[in-house]
């Protein structure tokens, strides 16, 4: 079978991506990156950011919370220092961009338009910043304005990464689609709070984003719902730990999957997911992914 997946103008050799913030820029493990559909970079902002104070991570039975707070070198240094190296990767490179105003998304898109990257993932869902982030992603009109502005400023493939925090992603996914998005990623981490036992917030950023296995049922629910409402490709994300999880996301209607938290446990987790998917496709003699994408709805 041909395992390729096309989103906008970007052709991914297989449906497995490393999720933003969990694989840095794909450069630490190039032999892994090179065998994936693509890597999504850490979020890039216009200005450099030092991120949140520690602690930035907490583990609970079911997953983790993080509050990194978009630590990144800023778009200029990213273009100067990182892009020349990611351009040498054999996989597609998707740059996750995060703005603190609607206009900033436009500036980021324009700045990256001439760079050798393959797609932009518009992050309207970061839970760990005080302005922008998930607050934008909760408002369909704002998602629409941001997507429309990014569309105007770049010819690159646009994927909008949506939040499911206090919003129906069906509404925001439709808004993104209407404004010209080529695909949507869902879901980003969910809001979470951890206390230290003495009543004080544990994480340095006070609250965090929940990820890992605990997220999967809700993420699948969201993918299933949104798949019935939009035509653009969905990239499923949330608790993909192995190939069986990835298969569930495809069955629920996603065309691709992102592996996130699992990379922290095993930097080769994405490869294991891809190997498992490939084995499934071979065993079941699939001729293309369409045979299984969204089958959960067809079978209900």
């Amino acid at each position, binding site marked *: 079978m041909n395992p390729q997946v096309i989103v906008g103008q970007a052709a991914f050799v297989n449906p497995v991506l490393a999720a933003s913030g969990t694989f840095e820029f794909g450069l630490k493990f190039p032999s892994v990156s090179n065998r994936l559909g693509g890597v999504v970079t850490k979020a890039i902002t216009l200005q450099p950011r030092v991120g949140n104070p*520690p*602690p930035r*991570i907490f583990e609970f039975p079911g997953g983790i919370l993080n509050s990194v707070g978009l630590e990144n070198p800023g778009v200029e240094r990213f273009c100067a220092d990182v892009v020349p190296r990611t351009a040498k990767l054999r996989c597609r490179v998707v740059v996750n961009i995060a703005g603190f105003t609607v206009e900033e998304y436009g500036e980021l898109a324009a700045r990256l338009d001439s760079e050798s990257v393959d797609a932009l993932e518009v992050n309207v869902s970061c839970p760990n910043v005080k302005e922008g982030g998930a607050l934008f992603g909760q408002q369909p009109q704002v998602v629409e304005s941001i997507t429309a502005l990014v569309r105007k400023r770049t010819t690159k493939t646009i994927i909008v990464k949506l939040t499911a925090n206090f919003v129906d992603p069906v509404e925001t996914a439709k808004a993104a689609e209407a404004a010209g998005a080529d695909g949507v990623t869902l879901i980003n981490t969910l809001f979470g709070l951890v206390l230290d036992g003495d009543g004080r917030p544990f994480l340095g950023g006070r609250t965090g984003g929940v990820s890992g296995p605990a997220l999967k049922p809700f993420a699948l629910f969201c993918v299933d719902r949104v798949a019935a409402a939009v035509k653009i490709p969905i990239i499923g994300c949330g608790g993909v730990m192995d190939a069986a999880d990835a298969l569930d996301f495809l069955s629920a209607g996603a065309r691709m999957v992102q592996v996130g938290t699992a990379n*922290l446990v095993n930097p080769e987790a994405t490869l294991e997911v891809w190997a498992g998917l490939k084995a499934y496709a071979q065993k079941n003699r699939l001729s293309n992914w369409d045979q299984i994408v969204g089958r959960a709805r067809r079978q209900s």
Partner: protein
Amino acid sequence: MKPTRCKVTDARELCAGVYSMWLEAPDIARRVRPGQFLNVKVSSGLDPLLRRPISVCDVERNRVRLVFRVVGRGTAQLSRARVGDELDVMGPLGRPALELRGEEVLFCGGGIGAAPLLFLARRLKQANRLEILLGARTKAELLLVKEFRALGARVAIATDDGSAGFHGMVTELAEEEAKSQKPKAKSQSAGRWLAVSGERPAVFACGPRPMLADLVKRLDPIPVWGFVEERMGCGTGICYCCALPKKGGGHVRFCEEGPVVRLNEVVL
């Protein structure tokens, strides 16, 4: 980097809540250098999910030794591993501690902090003069004293309750030791970080945060290189979760830039 499976060849409790474990790991034993750590999966399933970073305490032929204290669910589970069990291990990770030659090197370990210093001391003993200070709350909690003595270095002990050695904190001992050192010509320092003081011993420390902060204050302006402990996500530099604030702003990712960092430059 692929995780590898390592067989436990020895497992014992050293004192209440502190465990020693030897793992058969030829590849790691060959490559690991002092300062580096292993990231150990303590369960085969999804809970606990993350690996636990543990500094290498010693190396012997094709085996590596981990000495750790039980601080939570993960380390509690690890402490239940038995001889013959296999652990899923990643490593060696982190940046090796700098190599030294012809220096006077002071080691200051508090509690479980003695563990990573042993491997470093073993590697540095041939080309340097070592002074080893070990502290604990009480005599029963002193760790690895025999191993340090076997290196042939001078070992001084401090306990909070006076049950062994100096009655007081190990940082007090370190302060006295540093003051008693004879000034040494700048040109003789081999390590470039010594240029700051230029005339003092190199200091390596590991222990609880308050101890490290106290040591830095007492020895100022002598630079102190410390093994830092903090919650870690990936251990490989990809998640940015193990951030330590730098005094001038920004963070050190100590899974990658550490775990041995210059303590004078970070906020403890």
